[in-house]
């Protein structure tokens, strides 16, 4: 018995130590220490031994098993350590990578803005880009004859008289003509109609259209609109919201201010300025006395609340909106915003 065990131990040791890889090693494990291995079979022979030899045989077998187990672990480690690692590397050579695409600057800005306002409880909604005169103007306290409703400011949809069954784009007797929304503010009354009872906290981002093109205007652009209506909403809340946004979007050192301004659908109305990032508010070539205009805002005009069937005696609100492109231009010092829509791949791949 002694010799049998010793021989088995020596043979097994050699086998294990000369294993080439972990696959072979694992197979050997099954062969040497598995259920039907020789050593296990030896255990089964113990009861056949004379009484006085049994204990010793058992101990020897167990010791052999332990030893083999230890050799296995050692071999496993040394195999792992000796795993081929290549000869030498050039850390300056390019790695193997997936080719990534690029997000458009406008999308990147939208994502950032949405994230910031989501934290303040605003939900992201979207409303038609081709909408009725009522939502785009009339309900926003912009009566007929208002300059924004002129043909040279806003795009209107042609109404073709029926030559076929398609007789759409006709003015609606109640809602007026169809227009390409010149701002996202058409979402204000639509959101009030949807929510019915405040609180309202909405942001609406959409393509907007105006009849102008130059270095700082494209006929299509993106606007961002925020609306908050509740029982206790004041100018100080609007200020706080803008401070929060500005620090999150432009950086902790930037400061905002409200200036008196004029919009038909808000009263009081403000222009929101941010300190210029180039000169730190000291005044330079690209800013106005240290300030950059971010966008318009104001307390929702009572007539707009009424148009949305919300009682202005109970509720107040604030609204704000600005062009995403201008915000991008402010952040990236883009000289001509038309670049955003020329889709030159060399431009797109920069971001």
């Amino acid at each position: 018995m002694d010799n049998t065990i010793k021989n088995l131990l020596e043979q097994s040791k050699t086998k294990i130590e000369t294993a080439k890889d972990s696959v072979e090693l694992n197979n050997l494990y099954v062969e040497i220490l598995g259920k039907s291995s020789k050593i296990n079979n030896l255990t089964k022979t113990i009861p056949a031994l004379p009484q006085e030899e049994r204990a010793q045989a058992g101990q020897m077998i167990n010791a052999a098993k332990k030893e083999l187990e230890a050799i296995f672990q050692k071999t496993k480690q040394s195999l792992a350590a000796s795993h081929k690692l290549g000869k030498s590397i050039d850390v300056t050579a390019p790695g193997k990578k997936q080719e990534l695409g690029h997000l458009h600057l406008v999308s990147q800005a939208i994502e950032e803005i949405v994230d910031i306002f989501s934290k303040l409880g605003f939900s992201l909604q979207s409303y038609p880009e081709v909408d009725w005169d009522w939502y785009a103007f009339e309900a926003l306290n912009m009566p007929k004859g208002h300059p924004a409703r002129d043909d040279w400011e806003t795009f209107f949809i042609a109404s073709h008289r029926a030559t076929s069954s398609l007789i759409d784009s006709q003015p609606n007797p109640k809602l007026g003509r169809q227009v390409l929304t010149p701002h996202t503010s058409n979402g204000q009354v639509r959101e009030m109609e949807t929510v019915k009872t405040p609180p309202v906290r909405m942001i609406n981002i959409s393509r907007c259209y105006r009849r102008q093109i130059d270095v700082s205007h494209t006929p299509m652009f993106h606007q961002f609109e925020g609306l908050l209506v509740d029982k206790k909403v004041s100018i100080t809340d609007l200020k706080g919201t803008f401070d929060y946004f500005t620090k999150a979007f432009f950086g902790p050192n930037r400061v905002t201010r409200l200036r008196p301004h004029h919009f038909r659908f808000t009263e009081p109305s403000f222009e929101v300025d941010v300190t210029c990032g180039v000169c730190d508010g000291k005044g330079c070539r690209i800013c106005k006395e240290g300030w950059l205009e971010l966008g318009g805002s104001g307390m929702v005009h009572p007539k707009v609340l009424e148009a949305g069937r919300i009682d202005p005696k109970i509720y107040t609100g604030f609204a704000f909106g600005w062009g995403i492109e201008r915000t991008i231009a402010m952040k990236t010092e883009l000289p001509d915003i038309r670049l955003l829509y020329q889709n030159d791949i060399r431009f797109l791949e920069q971001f």
Partner: protein
Amino acid sequence: MNLLVPISWLREYLKTDAAAKTISRELSLAGPSVERTEKRGEDYIFDIEVTTNRPDAFSVYGIAREANAILNYIGSKSKLQPPVGMDLNLDPDTKEKLTLDVKITNPILCPKFTAIVLANIKIGPSPAVIKNRLEAVGIRSINNIVDITNYIMMETGNPMHAFDYDKILGAKMVLRASRQGEKLTTLDGKNYKLPEGSIVIQDQKRLVDLCGIMGSENSQITRRTKRAIFFVQAYDPQTIRRTTQALAQRTEAAARFEKGIDLENILPVLSRAVYLAKKTAGAQIASELIDIYPRKQASKTISLNFDKLQKYSGVKIEPAKAAQILRLLGFKVQADVAKLTAQVPSWRAQDVQEDVDLIEEITRIYGYHNLPSTLPEGQVPQRTDGSLKQVIALKNSLKILGLTEVMSYSIISKNLLQTSQVSEKEAVELQNPLTEEWQFMRPSLIPSLVDIVAKNQNIKPSLAIFEIAKTYIKQKAGLPTQDLWLSAVKTGDSFYEIKGLAENIMQILGKTASFQKETKDGGIFQKDLAATVKVEGQEVGKIGLLNRNFSGSFGIETPLLALNLNLSIIYSLKSKTLSFHPIPKYPPQIEDISAIFAVQTPVALITEEITKTSTLVKNIEITDIFESEKIGEGKKSVTFRLTYQKSTGTPDAGEVHEARDKIIKKLQKEFLATVRI
């Protein structure tokens, strides 16, 4: 609208020790913004933005009035000094009185009209102070009388005009709406054919004024003028605006008339002009004053509750302070503990209409910068985000998948519309396009994307781009459909590549899609090399190779792959719900089977058959498909990787063998396959 104001001129009416810098800063915070300050010699010139609701501030005196209120409120010493000569006695100076016969056909066109005839005028250069001030604000000095008209406009905001009295035939003026086809030459020498309904003045014979825009050449003041008519009035703002736009001629005068004029200030302005003419041109009043003012401008009184003021401002502004602010702005105010009533000054009549307007006046002078910053209290509404939130996540995934996002105009040309194969009748057309380039709202994004590929093909021959945007198609009634689409275009000719992308996208969106071969000819996609995509049995778009004629029409020779998915529909469909499946306790047996099939046999059909044949097969993966001469024409070799698995233990060799045999027999029988193993 922007206004230039030299500080030296401003100080004629604004008596204050405050420095230019202080005035500029305080004005910007509480009133019209000083956008830039230019130093010119000893003087500073402010470039001020005046909002369209504040024509009362669109003049040097108007700015002085604002600045005075603001400076006083913050405790700077300041006093407002109105221009001299605004309340002259306008009785005739000459013994011999001249007549002027004025008729206004429609008082809506001209709510107030004043005129007076001046004689013994000595035309000459203006005094240096007037000349310099006009030049500082960008107006060329002409002669003392013409300069007065411009000076008065810049000083008071009220445009005025002067005619040569001797050129007004019959000393007769009829103010009326123009008729179709009437012509006139303005004093800058331009000829106009007037639109119907412009405001004009006619003398006995001819048109002498294009009211509110510019005077006519035939009645202008010249070096030889001896007698003049001074003429101050207001016009219907909308009519003026229509004319300026129809003629594309927007003068300084028109810019003011179209915002509305303070009717109560017209007579003082005329008086001031006469004062200046007497002083600088030796003029004498030679007629009775003509003052036609059929309906006096209403004066409104508004009451404001202090609770409401606090609700809006967020702070408690003392009633006395609120009243003080309004008084500084020219309102007549009465206040008690709960509310105040304010009578609106004539120059703010159009702008200040209700209590919220008073709140604006009070809070802006109080100073928005003096209000604290707070975050809104109150509940966060229970409202789920719209699909745009999902779109943002999707765009990020597409970027990781190697696609670059483009953004192109939603308004397209007729040419681009025609390539999209949507009829003009269905397309949403603009009534007033800016150019032919932007005439229709696009019904599909694909033409725009292919156009972008065409523009970039010499810069980067291999491209993969996408856009997510709305498309527009007319409906029988109401607004057009405005569905959100995801479109992608990439260079390449492998259908499986674009299908892979579609499958990736569906996985990201949590949908199961099926694909059906496109067998129709003549679309944007190539017949037989494209597929219709369905989710839950509903068609959601197409993928595949683009029709070579279509991409060829953009000058692209290389094959293009495209994907066009209607996200509005996809988002509205149910997503797969993820649930837990127990992890198998026993390892599977895995083996490959290769077999040769007819090329047209869909692999989906084969895998379906295999699944049906043996319950031991838990997963089938297709690891290889190829065609070659070796295996013969019209044949393809397909390799399936089969996973045999059961819950009670690892399948043994016998079980696997049995399943494999069954499968092979089935493939031979159903598909006449040659199994290669």
